[in-house]
């Protein structure tokens, strides 16, 4: 920051006259390890009193070189990497990756697998939105709104646990389907969840939705227009809050999403309140989709018939020569993959999650690039908070659902 007698030059090149400044100009570090940033993000804010003039972002604190790692791993070993992108909804990342590989292999998975995937992915979307919306509550000063849906999220994690044994970094499913069918415990827990969750959700929603304090704090905070959001490459609930009804599930349906009846909620102003409301409505729509998928779950097997990629039954491995060979090839990552180049995207928790995969026929991808939605839209953050108070910057950051793991890859 350079100063002359009556001009101040800010770090982004903007020049202000001292007459327009109310208080003193100060530079503060918001992050990287600040309790209000919910992750490792640094914003160097130039403030005039409480008003934000500019913000310079630093990202990359937890960069783990996923794209480089993927170039040395067999396809099935890349799934655990995808867990660690948006770790609030890792099943969507896992299943999106499986679908990408299946597209490359020209594999059609059974209808039952597609419906099972839809159920798991929509559960993940609910968990993702529950976290994001409850954190907006925390940042506006209502800790109850974080703890109350915690027990509901716990039920979703128990469902993951029943299917794959893990809760956060799930590595759920396999290339070609799932490792097992829905278990009796899963059925029982899912039915219980579908019965009790709507009531608990509406009770929690009632705490915030028409709450005078919450509305006053969030309405008009961190707004972005549809036009600017599109220019910045927004996708997901943040774009829909600005009024654009783009949803990958509808425009390019995958995993039988065309079979289900659901609506895309859109906002008007693109502010924090609209983002909150869009997510809340998406939770209701996700529940609708789960109900439809679960009530019409087709009969059939839980995996496609691709022995080169789908691990055989353990009993067969001991008693059947062919199964033993395939088991060995899959575990050692020696399965043949065709040459090809494919882009597949799914509607992730916070936007269009894409996988750009180039295979040269080797055991590992030649190049794998993730389209990480929050990396692309987080660059709009300085524009969204310019002129706002620091406390508005905090709720804007939590309401755009920036997940450090996905941001930094």
């Amino acid at each position: 920051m350079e100063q002359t007698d009556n001009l101040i030059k800010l770090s982004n090149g903007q020049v202000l006259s001292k007459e327009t400044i109310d208080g003193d100009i100060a530079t503060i570090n918001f992050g990287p390890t600040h309790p209000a940033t919910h992750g490792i993000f640094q914003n160097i804010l130039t403030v005039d009193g409480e008003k934000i003039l500019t913000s310079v972002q630093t990202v990359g604190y937890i960069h783990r070189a996923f794209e480089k790692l993927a170039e040395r791993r067999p396809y099935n070993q890349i799934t655990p990497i995808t867990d660690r992108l948006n770790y609030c909804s890792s099943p969507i990342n896992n299943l999106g990756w499986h679908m990408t590989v299946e597209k490359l292999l020209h594999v059609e998975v059974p209808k039952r697998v597609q419906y099972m995937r839809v159920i798991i992915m929509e559960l993940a979307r609910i968990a993702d939105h529950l976290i994001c919306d409850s954190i907006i509550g925390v940042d506006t000063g209502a800790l109850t709104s974080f703890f109350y849906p915690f027990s509901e999220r716990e039920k979703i994690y128990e469902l993951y646990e029943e299917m794959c044994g893990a809760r956060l970094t799930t590595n759920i499913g396999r290339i070609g389907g799932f490792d097992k069918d829905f278990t009796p415990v899963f059925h029982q827990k899912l039915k219980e969840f579908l019965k009790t969750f709507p009531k608990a959700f509406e009770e929690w929603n009632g705490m915030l939705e028409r709450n005078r304090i919450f509305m006053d704090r969030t309405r008009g905070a961190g707004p972005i227009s549809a036009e600017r959001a599109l220019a910045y490459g927004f996708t997901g609930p943040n774009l829909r809050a600005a009024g654009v009804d783009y949803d990958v599930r509808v425009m390019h349906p995958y995993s039988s999403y065309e079979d289900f009846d659901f609506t895309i909620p859109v906002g008007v102003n693109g502010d924090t309140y609209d983002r909150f409301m869009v997510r809340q409505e998406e939770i209701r729509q996700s529940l609708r989709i789960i109900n439809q998928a679960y009530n019409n779950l087709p009969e059939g097997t839980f995996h496609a018939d691709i022995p080169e990629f789908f691990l055989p039954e353990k009993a067969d491995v001991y008693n059947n020569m062919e199964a033993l060979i395939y088991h060995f090839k899959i575990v050692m990552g020696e399965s043949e993959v065709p040459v090809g180049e494919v882009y597949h995207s799914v509607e992730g928790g916070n936007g269009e999650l894409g996988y750009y995969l180039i295979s040269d026929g080797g055991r590992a991808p030649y190049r794998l690039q993730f389209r990480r939605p929050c990396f692309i839209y987080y660059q709009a953050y300085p524009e969204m908070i310019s002129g706002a108070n620091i406390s508005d910057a905090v709720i804007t950051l939590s309401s755009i659902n920036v997940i450090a793991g996905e941001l930094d890859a």
Partner: protein
Amino acid sequence: MTNNELLDALHEHLGTKLIVSEVLFDTLVIEVAAADAFGVIELVKNDSTLSFNFLTLIGAVHYPEEKGRELCVVYHMHSWKNAIRLRVKSYIPQENPSIKSLTPLFDGANWQERETFDFFGIQFEGHPNLTRILNMDEMDYHPMLKQYHLEDETREDKDDRFFGR
């Protein structure tokens, strides 16, 4: 709009600028010269029928074997009006890896180009702030290039033939 209709429209608009085109897994992929890439993307964005309004992704791929065209810059475009995707590729030599920046067309290109510069060393001409983004500023190489191996090459305890690549 189908890929064939899109290809016909592109032939009409671009003429000889369109070097190669193929359909890979339902997506039309076209190759244009690096000097034309900006103009082509501007055209497909602003044309009212094509209307590729959304920049999905910018990335790069390194092909060290192909002399003179080692680096490939890949733009994923998406037309929401026609619900169709288009992939635009431009090859550039590693000695002079330079291509025009898309930041005047899409603000969202800013960080994606910084990331591509960070990992592949591609110079985006006209970018307002082409600095490293995910790696630290002191780093003196571009790690996604194929000559930089993921693991220490002096290791003798691990035989690559058995583990992936």
